[in-house]
């Protein structure tokens, strides 16, 4: 069926603030859907309370509503806009729940809005575990034995019948919240209680645990003509028992025969077709018994899901984009493959590479959190790596993590005590893959590791081959001795120069030099959905060490934007927003825009955002070769958070221009000593501070500044391990903890300005004019991390004089640092004295918030300023905000039941929302202020 022309305007519902289990992948699907619909001439309205999203930007949608995701908001929109249809499948569980709620209240019917891309009955069937189980069984497929329980007693009875180990799955929750494995009877009561509490319907499923079965995920697309295509099949290296969001996953499936796969494929299609009638995406999870290849249906999500973004990036097939087109009536066979532009959109992508997705955890931010992996998702982000073999992709994934690892082991971070490792492997922890390698290195048999981890022997054997090759490398003493074919083999297996250097105890430079002499360089291959069968023009590349290089640099002038790597606390979706705008501005300025990042959840790594995309680790060795090949005019590091900024020094040393603020200026702002010297020179007050290399030095500094002091390691993100201490004992204790975890780090000690107010300024400086984008005042007092505080734009209690002083200092700093582009400055205000706490010479977490609240395309302006293609005076900046915009932090504490929820200097929030108020009499705001003052009494 061709497009339904009665649909002229569509409302897309977003997924709200980032929480664990529902992150920026839904910004990716929402933006793609919006662009896809606008291509068809459809007017798109978009509601999402998350201001850091690109979907809520004027570049994405016609009408943006940064409103709370409530039925009231929907009604207001429907009063304002003539909406023909609502597309609720792009915003995860949140959007669906809201759409269902509105449906129940009869809102859609009242305003004559059709729900498209979804079948409510299908959703309810998928969500209602008991109904779903019966449905699956009726289709002749299997599910694990289980019982539904609505009470404690029913739960106990079920456990008796099933035996242990078993699983508790609460109904209607996100990312497995409240669920878990119960291995022993003793643990059952508490687990059952937690499950019942977590479910809004006070219902859990008690299910037999199929631990160790292989786990697979299929992404499907279906149209109204009932054509179905499997877009991607993903194998979880971590078998059943670990939430797929916390599993290392691989595509294509590595250990699946055609017989087993086709059974899965047919079952998935039968299932999708049996679940109502809707056009769009769907995700089905299976467990496969390795003993007899028996299949069990684990779950189905009849919507674009968390894994759709990964499947899109893994195959090159834009699932959300096509799903949106199907929702407005197109059939798959009427659409073109977006990558080849000549072949059909109805086909199944095939891969001539391997992708590995590796989750990124941030347990350091949640002291007391249980690191154990299970049914409940705990990771806050993920990376994807692409290679021409599983091991190459796996090691690249490790290099993408930005957790100071150089690959899978061989980087002096290995564990060396067999007993410790074996003990550790008894439970699945976040570091499991590294420990598997360590164990193999120490000679632990593959069988033992399989018994402990239940990881398929194929993966274990693969990792074992790394151990063998490392042994082989030990024959050589210096880089020059390594024969070319052997070095090539190691590089093909994903080893970084740093790992090879560490193994030989030589310097990385020597390996690099030898490698260059031998001409062993990265080549780039295209992700094209079809294994090169058809010609594709998508500029989506990954590196490998194979023979032919397909990435031919154009003769245009190019600018590279560095992304921010995996999402984590303190660095997430907001930088994706910044990168997307940066890329658009680069194109506007007539340059070729090139994106480098490894985060599959992002919009900036979509195939049609940049002129060229390198899906690569944001890791110097990889970046260096891209620079060598592309020879760009320069690199923008201001938009990719601290991750990108950290690479500025290497880029600068290479003689490549940093677009915007120079490396030296950035270094001054980043280096505490140099920055304080500057402030002193500029006569700007700052809290007393000092650095210490040991506890004695720390005590001496504290004596000088006086207590309380703020203690933290230097060079960390989001206030990791930051504490406020009030006396020598506490200081000593905390300093020792820091050195224990980060032995080579220095400790920073700042005088803590008690009861101070905190505020920040985001600004742009073009060398002549200085423009303040926004001044935000925090509601919570100093001592609560800025990322965790509520903040008002513009300030609500600071005096004009205080704001003037802040602005004056900010301009002074920007001028003397010769900032070119963005700067964020944080202030503390105590007794009308304004102190500068820190300056970030880059886009900050709040930049997108301010751009949205004032409706000014600040990132576009800033990028033009950085490039020098435009000056501030070339823009007519009109801030448009009535009243105030409140930045509301959002937490994912329900994922960490035992974690201290008390806020402090260490950031814990995972996302944010925007909330508008007309004036300061607003009850929501009054409540905030009264709660905030409680911090002072503590």
């Amino acid at each position, binding site marked *: 069926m061709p497009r339904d022309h009665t649909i002229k305007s569509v409302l897309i519902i977003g997924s709200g603030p980032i929480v664990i289990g529902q992150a920026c992948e839904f910004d990716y699907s929402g933006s793609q859907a919006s662009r896809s619909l606008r291509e068809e001439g459809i007017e798109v309205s978009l509601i999402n309370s998350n201001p850091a999203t690109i979907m809520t930007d004027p570049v994405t949608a016609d009408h943006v509503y940064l409103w709370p995701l409530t039925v009231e908001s929907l009604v207001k929109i429907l009063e304002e806009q003539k909406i023909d249809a609502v597309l609720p499948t792009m915003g995860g569980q949140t959007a669906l729940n809201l759409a269902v709620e509105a449906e129940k209240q009869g809102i859609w019917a009242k305003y004559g809005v059709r729900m498209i891309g979804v079948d409510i009955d299908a959703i309810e069937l998928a969500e209602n575990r008991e109904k779903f189980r019966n449905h699956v069984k009726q289709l002749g497929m299997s599910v694990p034995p289980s019982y539904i329980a609505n009470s404690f007693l029913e739960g106990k009875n079920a456990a008796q019948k099933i035996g242990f180990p078993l699983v508790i799955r609460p109904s209607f929750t996100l990312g497995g919240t409240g669920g878990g494995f119960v291995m022993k009877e003793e643990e059952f009561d508490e687990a059952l209680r937690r499950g019942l509490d977590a479910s809004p319907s006070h219902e859990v499923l008690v299910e037999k645990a199929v631990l160790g079965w292989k786990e697979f995920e299929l992404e499907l697309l279906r149209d109204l003509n009932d054509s179905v*295509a499997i877009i991607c099949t993903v194998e979880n290296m971590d078998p059943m028992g670990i939430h797929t969001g916390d599993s290392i996953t691989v595509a294509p499936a590595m250990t699946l*025969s*055609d017989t087993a796969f086709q059974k899965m494929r*047919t079952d998935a299609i039968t299932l999708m077709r049996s679940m109502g009638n809707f056009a769009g995406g769907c995700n089905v999870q299976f467990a496969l018994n390795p003993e007899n290849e028996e299949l069990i249906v684990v779950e189905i999500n009849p919507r674009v899901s968390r894994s759709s973004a990964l499947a899109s990036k893994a195959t090159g097939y834009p699932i959300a984009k096509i799903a949106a087109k199907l929702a407005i009536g197109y059939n798959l066979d009427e659409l073109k493959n977006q990558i080849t532009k000549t072949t059909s959109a109805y086909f199944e992508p*095939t891969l001539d590479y391997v992708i590995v997705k590796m989750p990124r955890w941030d347990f350091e931010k949640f002291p007391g959190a249980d690191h154990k992996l299970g049914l409940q998702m705990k990771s806050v982000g993920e990376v994807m790596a692409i290679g021409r073999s599983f091991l190459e992709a796996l090691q690249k994934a490790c290099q993408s993590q930005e957790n100071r690892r150089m690959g899978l082991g061989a980087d002096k971070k290995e564990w060396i005590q067999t007993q410790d490792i074996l003990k550790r492997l008894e439970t699945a922890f976040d570091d499991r893959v590294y420990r598997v390698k360590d164990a193999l290195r120490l000679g632990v048999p593959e069988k033992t590791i399989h018994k402990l981890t239940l990881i398929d022997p194929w993966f274990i054997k693969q990792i074992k081959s790394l151990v063998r090759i490392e042994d082989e490398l030990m024959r050589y003493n210096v880089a020059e001795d390594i024969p070319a074919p*052997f070095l090539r083999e190691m590089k093909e297996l994903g080893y970084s120069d740093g790992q090879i250097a560490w193994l030989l105890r030589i310097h990385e430079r020597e390996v690099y030099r030898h490698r260059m002499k031998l001409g062993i360089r990265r080549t780039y*291959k295209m992700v094209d959905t079809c*294994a090169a069968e058809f010609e594709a023009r998508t500029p989506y590349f990954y590196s490998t060490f194979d023979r032919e290089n397909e990435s031919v640099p154009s003769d245009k002038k190019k600018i590279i934007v560095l992304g921010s790597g995996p999402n984590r606390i303190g660095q997430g979706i907001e930088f994706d927003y910044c990168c997307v705008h940066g890329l658009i501005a680069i194109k506007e300025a007539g340059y070729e825009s090139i994106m480098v990042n490894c985060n599959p959840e992002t919009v900036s790594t979509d195939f049609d955002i940049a002129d060229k995309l390198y899906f690569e680790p944001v890791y110097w060795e990889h970046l260096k070769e891209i620079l060598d090949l592309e020879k760009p005019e320069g690199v923008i590091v201001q938009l990719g958070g601290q991750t990108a900024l950290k690479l500025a020094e290497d880029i600068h040393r290479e003689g490549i221009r940093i677009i915007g603020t120079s490396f030296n200026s950035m270094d001054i702002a980043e280096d505490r000593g140099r920055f304080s010297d500057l402030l002193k020179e500029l006569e700007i007050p700052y809290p007393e501070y000092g650095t210490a290399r040991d506890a004695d030095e720390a005590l001496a500094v504290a004596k000088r500044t006086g207590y309380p002091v703020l203690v933290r390691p230097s060079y960390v993100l989001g206030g990791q391990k930051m504490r406020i201490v009030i006396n020598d004992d506490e200081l000593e204790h905390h300093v020792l903890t820091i050195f224990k975890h980060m032995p080579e780090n220095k400790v920073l000690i700042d005088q803590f300005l008690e009861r101070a107010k905190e505020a920040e300024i985001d600004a742009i400086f073009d060398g002549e004019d200085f423009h303040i984008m926004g001044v935000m005042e925090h509601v919570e007092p100093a001592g609560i991390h800025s990322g965790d505080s509520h903040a008002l734009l513009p300030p609500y209690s600071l005096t004009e004089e205080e704001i003037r002083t802040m602005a004056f200092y900010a301009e002074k700093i920007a001028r003397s640092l010769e900032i070119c582009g963005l700067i964020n400055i944080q202030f503390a205000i105590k007794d009308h004295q304004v102190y500068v706490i820190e300056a970030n010479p880059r886009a900050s977490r709040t930049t997108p918030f301010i751009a949205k609240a004032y409706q000014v395309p600040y990132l576009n302006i800033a990028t033009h300023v950085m490039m020098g293609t435009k000056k501030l005076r070339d823009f007519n900046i009109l801030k448009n905000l009535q009243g105030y915009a409140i930045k509301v932090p959002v937490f994912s504490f329900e994922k960490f039941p035992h974690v201290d929820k008390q806020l402090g200097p260490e950031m814990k929030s995972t996302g944010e929302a925007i909330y508008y108020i007309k004036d300061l009499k607003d009850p929501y705001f009054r409540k905030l202020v009264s709660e905030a003052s409680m911090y002072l009494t503590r």
Partner: protein
Amino acid sequence: MSEAYQSPAPAVLLLQDGKVFHGEAIGVKGTASGELCFNTGMTGYQEIFTDPSYYGQLLIATNVHIGNYGTKATETESSSVKIAGFICKNFTTDFSRLQAESSIQDYFVREKLVGIQQVDTRELVRHIRNKGAMNAVISSEIFDLGRLQEILGKTPNMDGLELASRVSTKEEYFLGDSSASYKIAVLDFGTKRNILLNLVNRDCYLRIFPAETPAEKILAWGADGYFLSNGPGDPAAMDYAIESTRAILKTGKPLFGICLGHQILALALNVPTFKMHHGHRGINHPVKNLVSGKCEITSQNHGFCVDPETLLQKTDLIEITHVNLNDDTVEGIRLKGRPAFSVQYHPEASPGPHDAHYLFDQFIDELADYKMNKS
């Protein structure tokens, strides 16, 4: 320093146009030549190796890991490996599947297959995509390019090459239950085992005839229906099969053809075939059924194709029932008003999606209808 780094046993791949790839030897030591073709499927390597339609071809796997799940005797499409040689990126001897019997290396050795790994298969596929299918030679014993050129010179060109008789059964045989509802005469041009199983499982009793069996002998059995199998080579070089098919068509009984069988049916109707630039080989090819309006993902393996222009001039006689959504090539035809049809792709899958199994049911329905109308 201890002994020097031991490079794995080398192998070389030389293409007709002079392009050379160096890699590592797999399978047995030796030399193999044939036409290069690539398959884009991500599962089902063993089914592909044993598919007789690949006879005489050097197969390139685009999937970068081959061998991960070992080999299993029941997952074959004929009694032996039919490809002439094998080219891949990563060949894995370590396999993991409890149901598997041996590693792919052991299997290759048993089947005496020559292969090469650690080749930039993507470069190779792009080359073929741009230049078209061509002959090549793999060797793990001869490294002198001049000598390899000589071998290449003796390798026959696929165009005009008759191969079906070489992979067809030498002796006729029966399959299934002799009391089954339908007696089907199968013309074996190199049939895949799963085609036969699909028929047997649908209550058919099969008599499988060697490719070159004279029509009179086939017709004499008095089958309820006829099946034209898949197979290798150029269909235009198979006069014997075209003649037999014309004779079968005269009986008016149900006829079903797959792949080469489809091309033979077309040729029997005076619709020519042509050699494609580089063919369709994979398990992700989109096909639209023009009769039902439904779409299916299909398993394909063909280097020749039926000419659409001629078909369009014969619309009174022949209907195009299926088209490929990627390149609009003809995927299925049917004789108007008669129970004879054929498809270019592989409804039996193995490997590949099971979307098109309905075609076997359709054949059975036509057999039933024919029987009923006759009685």
